[in-house]
Structures are given as C-alpha cells and as structure tokens.
C-alpha cells in the first residue's frame, strides 16, 4: 500500500462518478472521496509507525524514457500533509454541494474528483515533470467547473474564467521552461537531482523568476492577483472552495518544495524583496477587502491577504516560516472553504452576494450564525483556532527575518478583524424580517467537520507538526547546504 493508491482511488472515482449518472453522482463522489481520505489518513498513520516510511509508502516506476520521467509519488511529511488537506476537503466540498440543483451532476462531481486527483498528484509528485503535468491538469477541471456551473452574467463569467485560465497557464509555461532548462543540466526531473543542478547566478535568477511568475499568479501575490476576485465570485461555490481551499496551496507548497531548494542562492540574496511583496499583498488585500460590497469578493481579497502572509513566511526560508506556512495552508484551506460555504448558504437563501442586501440573519438562525461566527474568528486567527497556530509561526518567522515585516504583516490581525467583523455585522446582525432557514443536516455536518478540524488542531497541532517537521528540516538542509 503506497500513496499512489490515493490517486488511483480519486481517478477511478472520477470516472465512476461520471458514469454513475446524475442521480447517484454526488453520493458516489462522496463515497470515493471519503475512501480516499481514509486511505490518506491510514497512510499518514502508517507513516508514523512503519520503518523507513518514505521508502515503504512511496511509489516509483519508470514512465518515459525520453525525457526521463519517473512516476514517483513520494510519501514524506509535506506531501502527506497536503494530500490530507486535499482528500479531507474534497468530501466536505462535495457535501457542501449536495443541496445545489445543478444540471449534469455527473460531470460536475466527476470533475471535482478529477481535480482532487490532479491536486493530490501535484502534492505527491517527486518528479518535476510529473508535478508539472498534474499542476496543469488541475487547471482544466476548475476551468470547466467555473465556466459551466458558475453564476452571474454569462459573458462576464466567461471573461473572468478565460482570463484566469490564460493567466495561470501563462505563468506555468514559464515554470515549464525553467524545468526544461534545469533538466538539460541534470538529465533527470527528480527533485533531488534538480536541487543539485548547480546553476550559476544568472541561471538561478531566471529560474527563480520563472517559478515565481507561476506561483505568484496562482497564489496570487500582488500584482498578479487580478483574476482572483472575479473568479471566486463567478465560480460555483464548490469551484471557489477548490480554488481557494486547495489549489492555491499548490503554489505555496511549490515554493517550499521546488522553488527555494532549486534556486536557494538567489532566494537568499533577494528574499527581502519577495517577503516585502508578499507582505504588501497582505495589506493591500486587507484594505481592498474593506471596500468590497460583494461577499464572495470580500472573502477573495481576505484570502489574498492570508496567503500573502503564508508566502512571506515561506520566503523567509526558516523552519518556522516553512512550518508556519504549511500549517497555515492547512488551516486556511479549511477556514476558507467554510467561509465560502457560509456565503453560498446565504446565496442559496437570499439569492444575492451583495452584502448590502443581507442582514438580520442571526435572528433566524442560531446554529448557522454561531458556526459562521466561529469561522470568522478562525479566519481572524483567534488563538486556540488552527489559524492562530499557523499565523503565529508565520509572524514569528517574519519577526526573525525583520521585525518591521512582522509589524506590517501583523496588521492583518487588525485589518482582518476589521473587515471580517464588519462583514459579519452587516451580513448576519441587525434586524431583519426575511425568512432564512437554518442549516440543514448536511450543511451542518460540513460545518461541524470544518470547525472540528480548526479547533482540534488549534489546540493540539502536534501531530501535524511532527508530520511535517522532519521533511521541512530536510528541505532546509538542502537549501542551506547548497548555499
């Protein structure tokens, strides 16, 4: 039993879902994704228990002779953690869509599973080429999900989605070039070999920047973020959740796994520029979130701010920064899915995303509002939520790098509280007369799962820390050694 099983289940699940027909699609998808999560969790458990887990649980097989590509799915702490995120969120996301009366459900859920497959593949791949393939592959389902099941004006949506696709595609092509370039040096795409490519200064710069372009667009880091808010707004909730919950983590993960170890010298030399850029994104996103009148857009910009901090932490190239980044990725994944789900629930009931049209919901829905509140609080990183753990480590790593970065980045906890509470106030509080049904059982289950994760790991993040720390240390050793 090794990690490739996760991918097989997800891919097979995608096909099965597609064939199962509209009536059963959602259930089949849920079943498969849950199994995938179960397998991932079991593998994680095994990871702690077996000897030499990276060997036992990895999968490696020659794929293409020329270029030399190996089907290498590696089980290390980092990849397992990200796979856990993916497989844990997928069933939740599927659950959140249960109430939606989509046409062509089979394709919809099939695409979701396929996307989960691609994303899990991205996280598990140890071979750069393979990684790139999964990276690109994950674009296609989300494109269709957003295009076909999205809301709002069709023309506007198309524009936003195409812009998103072209933009991200553009970025990743440059990453491909970078990979090819290094491959010419190493003759192999295996991460280890790529790390040891011995590039000179100019080469490192170009490669770093190529990677940066890909990741900056995907994460997004300002000023490459313009696709984000529109797509988040236009895509169906499940799509937005996939995008913000998992997909953008692909890029953050990649910074740690690929970009920094491959171009460590350049990164070390100019890291402050990138940290500053990311931190600027934090402020920029927060301030923009303040001005939003559309709920989903507000959440989008808040996401921009949060991931900016994660990226900044990753660029500090310290254990704290890396670990904080990973933990915060996981935390943000859950919380953002929850928040978008809350937005979706409101949209289902009120048929609007405009904050101004909402209000007085708390009056009608004690359960929903409590859950929403908890999510809001987690999002503003209240201690004892998972997000705090991540954010604390991130800010601490920034403080180690440069105290002013931490101060500026830390403004997020003020501004974040500002816009999130303001949003909550306008959306949920106040007086209102419109009817608003409280959460259904399925919706409630999704919320409870998310909240449980956020609170549990907020208090007891140790398992995750123990999972990722050795791997991150290893990566850091590479980075340091190569210096």
């Amino acid at each position, binding site marked *: 039993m090794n990690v490739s099983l996760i991918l097989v289940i997800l891919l097979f699940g995608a096909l099965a879902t597609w064939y199962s027909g509209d009536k059963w699609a959602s259930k089949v998808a849920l079943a498969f994704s849950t199994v995938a999560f179960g397998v991932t969790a079991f593998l994680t458990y095994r990871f702690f228990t077996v000897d030499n887990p990276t060997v036992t649980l990895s999968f490696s097989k020659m794929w293409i002779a020329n270029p030399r590509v190996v089907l290498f799915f590696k089980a290390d702490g980092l990849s397992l953690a990200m796979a856990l995120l993916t497989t844990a969120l997928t069933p939740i996301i599927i659950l959140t869509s249960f109430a939606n009366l989509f046409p062509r459900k089979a394709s919809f859920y099939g695409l979701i599973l396929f996307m989960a497959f691609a994303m899990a593949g991205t996280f598990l791949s140890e071979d750069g080429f393979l990684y790139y393939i999964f990276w690109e592959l994950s674009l296609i389902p989300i494109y269709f999900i957003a295009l076909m099941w999205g809301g709002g004006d069709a023309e506007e949506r198309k524009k936003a989605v195409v812009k998103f696709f072209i933009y991200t595609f553009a970025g990743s092509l440059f990453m491909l070039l970078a990979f090819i370039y290094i491959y010419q040096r190493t003759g192999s795409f295996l991460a280890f070999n790529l790390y040891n490519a011995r590039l000179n200064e100019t080469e490192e710069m170009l490669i770093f920047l190529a990677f940066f372009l890909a990741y900056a667009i995907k994460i997004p880091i300002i000023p490459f973020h313009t696709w984000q808010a529109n797509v988040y707004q236009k895509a169906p909730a499940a799509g937005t959740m996939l995008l913000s919950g998992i997909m953008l983590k692909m890029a953050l993960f990649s910074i740690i796994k690929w970009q920094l170890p491959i171009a460590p010298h350049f990164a070390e030399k100019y890291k402050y520029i990138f940290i500053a850029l990311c931190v600027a994104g934090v402020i920029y996103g927060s301030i923009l979130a303040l001005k939003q009148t559309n709920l989903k857009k507000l959440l989008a910009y808040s996401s921009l701010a949060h991931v900016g901090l994660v990226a900044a932490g990753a660029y500090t190239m310290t254990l704290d920064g890396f670990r904080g980044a990973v933990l915060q990725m996981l935390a943000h994944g859950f919380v953002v899915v929850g928040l978008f789900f809350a937005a979706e629930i409101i949209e289902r009931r009120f048929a609007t995303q405009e904050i101004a049209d909402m209000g007085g919901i708390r009056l009608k829905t004690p359960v929903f509002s409590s859950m929403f509140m908890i999510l809001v609080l987690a999002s503003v990183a209240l*201690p004892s939520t998972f997000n705090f753990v991540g954010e604390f480590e991130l800010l601490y790593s920034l403080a180690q790098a440069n105290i002013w970065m931490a101060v500026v980045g830390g403004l997020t906890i003020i501004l974040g509280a500002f816009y999130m509470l303001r949003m909550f106030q306008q959306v949920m509080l106040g007086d209102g007369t419109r009817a608003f049904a409280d959460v259904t059982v399925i919706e409630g289950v999704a919320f409870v799962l998310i909240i449980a994760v956020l609170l549990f790991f907020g208090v007891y993040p140790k398992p995750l820390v123990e999972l990722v720390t050795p791997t991150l240390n290893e990566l850091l050793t590479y980075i340091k050694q190569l210096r």
Partner: protein
Amino acid sequence: METNLALLLLFAPFAGFLINVFFGKKIGKNASGYLGTAAVAVSFVVTLFFFLQVSSTKKAISVELFEWLNLQNFTVGFNFLLDQLSLLWLMFVTGIGTLIHLYSISYMHDDENMHKFFAYLNLFVFFMLTLVMGSNLLIMFIGWEGVGLCSYLLIGFWYKNQDYNDAAKKAFIMNRIGDLGFLIGIFILAHIFHTLEYTNIRTAVENAWTIDRTWLTIAMLCLFIGACGKSAQIPLYTWLPDAMAGPTPVSALIHAATMVTAGIFMVTRLNFLFNLTPDVLEVMAIVGAITSLIAASIGLVQNDIKKVLAYSTVSQLGLMFLALGCGAYEIAVFHVITHAFFKACLFLGSGSVIHALHGEQDMRNMGGLRKVMKITFATFLISTLAISGLPPFSGFFSKDEILMTAFHHNTVLYVIGSLASIMTAFYMFRLLYLTFYKDFRGTEEQKHHLHESPGLITFPLIVLAILALVGGAISLPGASWLNEYLAPVIAKPAVHHHLGPTEYMLMGIAVVGALVGIGIAYAKYMNKGEVPPQDSEIKGVAGLLYNKYYVDEVYTAIIVKPIYAIGSFFKNVTEAAISGLVFGFGKAAVFLGKQGGAVQNGSVGFYLLIFVLGICAIVGSIFLIK
C-alpha cells in the same frame, strides 16, 4: 490531584458554556442561569482551596498539560501556573464572577437569549481564567484574545441594534491593535529568551544574562501597547465607554472588574522585565496619569449613568498604570482589587437602577430613587464613597498609596493623579445626586413602575458593598498583608513609605480634595438643583468634554477615513490599472490580430507580392548583407 483540580477550576466555566450553548434553550432560563453561576462558583471554590494552600505553603503550583506550539527556538506548552499573583486574580475573578452571574439571573430574566448570555459569560470566565492561569505569555494570549472575543460577543449581545454591534466591533478591533503589540512583544521576548515561560524568563533575567536592552525596551513597549488596548489607556481607550452598550452585568464583570485589569495583570506578571526597562515604566506612568485625568474630565459632564462609570473606570485604570509606572506593582494590584469591588458594585447598582427604569440610562431622566430603591442606594453610596477615596473605605487606601508613590516618583504625576481623584469625587457624587436625590424626572409611566430590585440583584450588591467597605484591610499602610503575600512574585518590591508627616499630609490632601469635589457636586446639584442641559445646549469646554474631546472623530478622520480612502484608491485606481494592464495584453493581442487579418485581403496578387518580397528579403539577407 492538583492537576485535576486545576483543570476543574479551568474547565468548570467551559463546561457551563458548552451546556448552555447546546442545551441552554432546552433546560430553561433559570436552570441555565443557575448552571452558569454554579459553574463559576465551582471555580471559585477550587480557587479558594488553592488560595489557602498557596498562602500557607507559599509554593506555586504548576500544571503542565501538553506541548502546543513548537518553534525552532522554543516550544510553548499548555502549562498553567498557580502562584500568588494568579490566585489572587482568580479569587476576585471567580468571586465577583459568581456574584455577577447570580445578579444576571434576575437581571437578564426577560431576555429571550438568556442561555446564550450565560454561555458567553461562562466562556468569558473560562478565558479569563486561562489568561490568569497560563504559565507563559502565549497561553495568556489565548485568554487575552478570548476575553476580547467574549467582550465582543457580550457588547453586541443585543445584535439587532447596529450601534451596539458597532461598539462591539470597535472594542474588538481596538483590542486587536493592542494585541498586535502584545504579539510583537512576544516575538521579541521569544527571540531574546528562547522561552515564553514566566519562570524561565525570570530565571534568565536573574541569572543576569546579557540582554539587549534596546530590544527588550521595544518588547516591553509593545507589550505595554497590548496592555493599553486591553486596559483602555490612551490612545486605545475609546472603546471602553462605547462598550457600555452591553448588558450591565457585562459592564460590571468585564469592563470594570476583570478583563480591563488584564493589562495590569500582565505588567505585574512581567514586573521583573519591566524593572529592567525604566523608560517603559516612565512612559507607562505618564500614559496612566494622562489617561486618568482625561477620562475623569470627560466623566465630569457625561449624562449616561453607565458612561460616567465607564470613564471613571478608564480613569481608575489610568491610576493603576500610574502606580505600575512608578514600579509599585503591589499597589496597582491593590487598587485593582478594591476597584473591582466598588466598581462592580457601582455598575451593578446602576444596573439595578436601569432595571427599575426599564432601560433608561440618562441621568437627566432619573432622580429621587433613594426613596424607592433603598438597598441599591445604600450600596451605591458606599461604593461611591469608596471610589471617591474617603476613609475608611477601601478606595481610600489604594488610591492614597498610588498618589503617595506618585508623589515620591514625580510631583507632576502626583498632581495630575490628584486632580483626577478630585474630579472623580465630583462626578461620582454628581452621579449619585442626579440619580438618587431630588425628584424623579422620568415619565409618569416609569415612575409608576419604580421598584426595588429583587433579592438576586440586591444580594450581590450588598456583598460587594461590604467588600468595598472593608476591602482596604488587605493592605493597610504599614501592615500590608497583600505586599507580603505578593512578595514572591514581585521581583523588586515598591519602596514602602513609612507613615511620616509627608504621608499624612498627602492623605490629608487627598481626603480634602475628595471632599472638595464632593462639595462642588453638592453645591451644584443639591443646592442649586441643576440638571444637566440637553445635548444641543452643551457648549464650550463642557461641549468639548461632553464630546470626549472629539477623539473618536479625530480617530475617524486620521485613521479610518484614510484607510477607506486608500481602499477606494486601490479599488478604483490600482485594481483597475492592474486589471487594465492584464486585459490590455489581451486587447493588444486582439488588435494586432485584427491588423493581421486586415492584411489578409483576399487578393492573390497581393499575396504573391508579399511572397516575392519575402523571397527578396530572405535571399538578400542571407547572401547580400554582410
């Protein structure tokens, strides 16, 4: 055993919270109220147990649960420390908490969300306990933010009213500003000491590590900013008066007795560090003094009964910081305790009044309640005397010590503090007179319904009044039990002044000052029978004061508005520009495509012409051009 008891202490309120959240509605209002009260009472009992134990053994109890955060340089565990300081705090937190819970059962009885109220209160107590019990800064931070959250929830308890929600939000955000400072302070301390445990830091300090004083100063300053946020000091004090939007028991518990003293607790906790940074202490003293004066001056003219009390709280907190700034931690703690007694009593009393008047808070519409609400009046009077600093009430001792310390520290600060005290005496008596004396100025209907509050409300009042009366006993000048008790946790005890002539003179001045304040109030509101004018008629200095020096407006103008303006700029200019740039690429591509399409004009002759020119170009460039 100790661990389990400590956990019981900590989690009893949390259990109360959970039960109230999930089953509150089912078990009914009274049950949920009593349950909440019982939960805190359990904590109180356990605290008492520990308190007695520690008082006798003089050994701190520490409880270690599990590792929480794991950073490169240090780890943070869920560890709790029950030493003299925390137990002292726990005593009055749980004690007063229990009383206020009890009070709330009656006070909130008409509210449909009573179970939620108790849930929040319990949660608050839980977080407050976490804050106090935590053995490191980060656990304290959990409580620190947690109480802020509960404060937010409780201020906005009546969430239908968006003004209340605004107040709640404001409280949370202003607290968060402080929290950022706190967090940065933590970072620097962690960087310096590689630990956040108080005991470890203290050991490190005492072992005379070479510590970078600059960074330490910055760290302590940051922590002080945190304290400013939580304890409502300049410039982060404006949330507290607004926080009065919450139900009165909340104001009593959170915004008078417990949460707002978290800043003082923190500073006292870290006194061994603050001792190393006299500059920060100096700043603290100045900020405290100025806060106390400004808040008191605003309090002079407020007409909302709770607002007056709120400003009074800010002012008293300022005095406490003045004491801290002078390095007299025990004295600050002393004042915290006495203040908790009398201010809680005052708030609860005002709550009783408001309850009787069905929500009326404007003193201009009160008066003459003395006759109807005898118990309330009596307790209120005692507390007012206490806060005004008249012997032998508890406030006299604590305040006097502060002023005395300030006098020895810096005369200017002393003068400021004294002025604030005089003002306090004035406005408290103004409050008393306007509320309880003369004739009732409200509507007939209100008058008709006037009544003394039920026993559940008056009982806590009586208890607190008694405490306000005798609370000074714990630290009598010259024979302070408190100082001795706290000695293990205070690294450098305050200089204890022998009661010499200067000291007696200062006491005299204080008493006289208080009397002067009372006298003016009497003259103005009893003799002349003045009633404060309507809002629109308040002008001049009074207007300035009444509008709180326009600080809120200034903040809006220099912080909030600019942020929104920047936001607009970002939204309308930068976003549009970046987006335009991206789309610009697309548009440019389409434009070029159109041009290219236009060349494709369908004429074979033209195509061939280009063909031939292409040949010329290629052949020429290969063979003819050097």
